[in-house]
């Protein structure tokens, strides 16, 4: 699925926090969004998910404006923060709820959950705990799994490596690449972790003060040095 951003701006008070004249994300790309705090990474993701109102411009997913047509919800998996989880559900209940919304049958759900077994470390399913009682890291895992379990053609993840233990970070990076290869999923990931983002992304968008200041192609981590140099010089 192709995503097109046109003249997108977001203003808070008299501060423009996002200003992107034109950007196209073609089908099957893995886009890494990097930038310091306040650069506008989460804002752009929220606008892509129609969670906040753009002051001007639009985001088009598969040709349709996301704020006018809700078709994108059927093929987009996303996880921004804990507000994407239902805190009083157990992980099983939550996955079941998500599966129901996407018409995934129970048997198929169980099969798909198997694929995330390594990431769950036997700490998530079968515990009987409500999601709110899990650690930040495990909540993050539940959110990421719920986003991926629907086999999305567009996947949007905000800081997916945060809170995760080292082995889970490796697994998440691997899963992002796998889902992209297997389903040609268009992935947009934001992160502060340059190592992982350059490991998974095919293109890096560097944001600063709401503007995309660099659009760096990334093949086998080739953008890492450039990005490291940029942030070190700030």
């Amino acid at each position, binding site marked *: 699925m192709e995503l097109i951003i046109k003249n997108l701006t977001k203003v808070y008070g008299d501060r423009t926090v996002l200003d992107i004249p034109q950007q196209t994300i073609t089908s099957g790309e893995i886009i890494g969004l990097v930038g310091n705090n306040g650069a506008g990474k989460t804002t752009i993701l929220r606008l892509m998910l129609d969670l906040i109102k753009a002051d001007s411009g639009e985001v088009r997913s598969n040709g349709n404006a996301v704020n006018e047509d809700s078709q994108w919800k059927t093929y987009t998996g996303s996880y921004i923060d804990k507000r994407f989880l*239902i805190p*009083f559900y157990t992980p099983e209940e939550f996955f079941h709820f998500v599966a129901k919304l996407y018409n995934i049958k129970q048997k198929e759900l169980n099969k798909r959950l198997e694929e995330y077994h390594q990431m769950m470390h036997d700490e998530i399913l079968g515990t009987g705990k409500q999601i709110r009682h899990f650690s930040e890291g495990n909540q993050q895992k539940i959110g990421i799994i719920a986003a991926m379990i629907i086999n999305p053609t567009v996947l949007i993840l905000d800081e997916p490596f945060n809170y995760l233990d080292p082995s889970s970070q490796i697994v998440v990076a691997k899963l992002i690449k796998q889902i992209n290869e297997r389903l040609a999923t268009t992935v947009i990931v934001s992160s502060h972790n340059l190592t992982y983002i350059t490991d998974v992304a095919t293109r890096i968008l560097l944001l600063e003060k709401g503007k995309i200041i660099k659009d760096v192609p990334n093949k086998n981590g080739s953008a890492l040095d450039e990005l490291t140099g940029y942030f070190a010089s700030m």
Partner: protein
Amino acid sequence: MDYIIREKVWHKTLVVAISILLLFPILYFTFGDMADELSRTKRFDYVVPYVALSILIPDFLLKYFVKREKLVMSDSMKTRPISTASWNRFVLLNCLLDSGNSYLLFFFIPVAFMSMSFVKSVLSLLLFFSICWLNGYAITIYRLSQDWEYKAPVIVVGFFWVPLVTCYVINPLSFPWVLHIIGFILLCMLMIYGLYKYSCTIHVYTDYSRNTKKEYVTHFSGLAIEYVSMMRATRYRLFPFYIIFNCLFGLFLVLNNPYISNTFSLELIVILSIIGLPIIYGIFMFAFEGNYMDGLWTRPIGIRRVMQVKYNGYVIDAAFMTILCYVLYRIFRNEIELPICFFGATLLFTSGVINHVIFFTSFLAKRCEMFSNSFSITPYRRSFLLEAVVFLPIIVLLLIYYFLPISIANIASALSGIIGVLLHPFIMKWFAQKYESNRYKYFEQYRN
């Protein structure tokens, strides 16, 4: 490998429900005897200690079910120089000022001042207040104690406290009335002081890993999310039971009171009972969802569908209460006649009018803090205007039944209900569209 485990979900709920229902005979026997005594002797002051004794256990049990806050010092306060003693004094003061602790006084104030002299009324109210404060504080300390070895002393003292008070009420030393009541108040104060000193000896930790109880994994239908959210919200899970209890207890009292003979009293309590439960769920419209609205909005479940699930839930609530009221009415029926079509008309009015009007709350809802146990002020606020909008149709219905003969009132309420039900798809569509057109504003409110 089957990851979805299905287990029974209702046994705990059932225990709570049965416990609450057990209060009916307790209250009936205690208050029934009091009423006989009162009508025989005309000595209202004489029965004050007995009334105080009789409310002791029901008040404690009700608070046990309803009062959930632990008043634990938050981590941010704990790491600052605030002594445990100061915090415990704050907890004590909080219980003193908590109007929920002394709700019984609202019933006793008019009765006391109408039936006794000023001094006796004040003393009686002070006594009731002391008991309410003590019960509320005892529950707070009980909930503060994290392990059974700390809870046990509170329970044991409670077991000794009831016989002690019972002996004192009999007044074996034949104190004059005033001294007797003052002594009773002092006994309560002594207990409160003892609990305060005890609270200073227990150590309370906000240990989140303790919250690892096994949840009953449910098989969700479309409706379940409505009920599961309320049942698992620490602060609010007993609200529906409380409403059901109050309504049915009110109905029970009206049906058993020989002095109430007008039909409207019965109509009033039945109407409020049927409408009460949907209203309770309705005032939390999108307040719980506010905690995960981002997740809902980005998934293929439209606001219209979410609202429909809610509406269906409200209809089931109203139908449940209608059946319960009718059964109770048939069991304890007195000389007041209520035709079955009255129950049907009220249910229709609730489904067609009230359950739609409730949806105005979706426009003014704030995110509700569902799980906070420590002392915090919930960001969930209500608007006076909103309450007026919701309660207006209830008042209109009550006025219809007050001023019109019951047969005409039934036709009027049933007709309005039927019109509401027929217009249901259009009304829901309008609410959903209205909500979606202002969604960014609402989403922002939930995030704050």
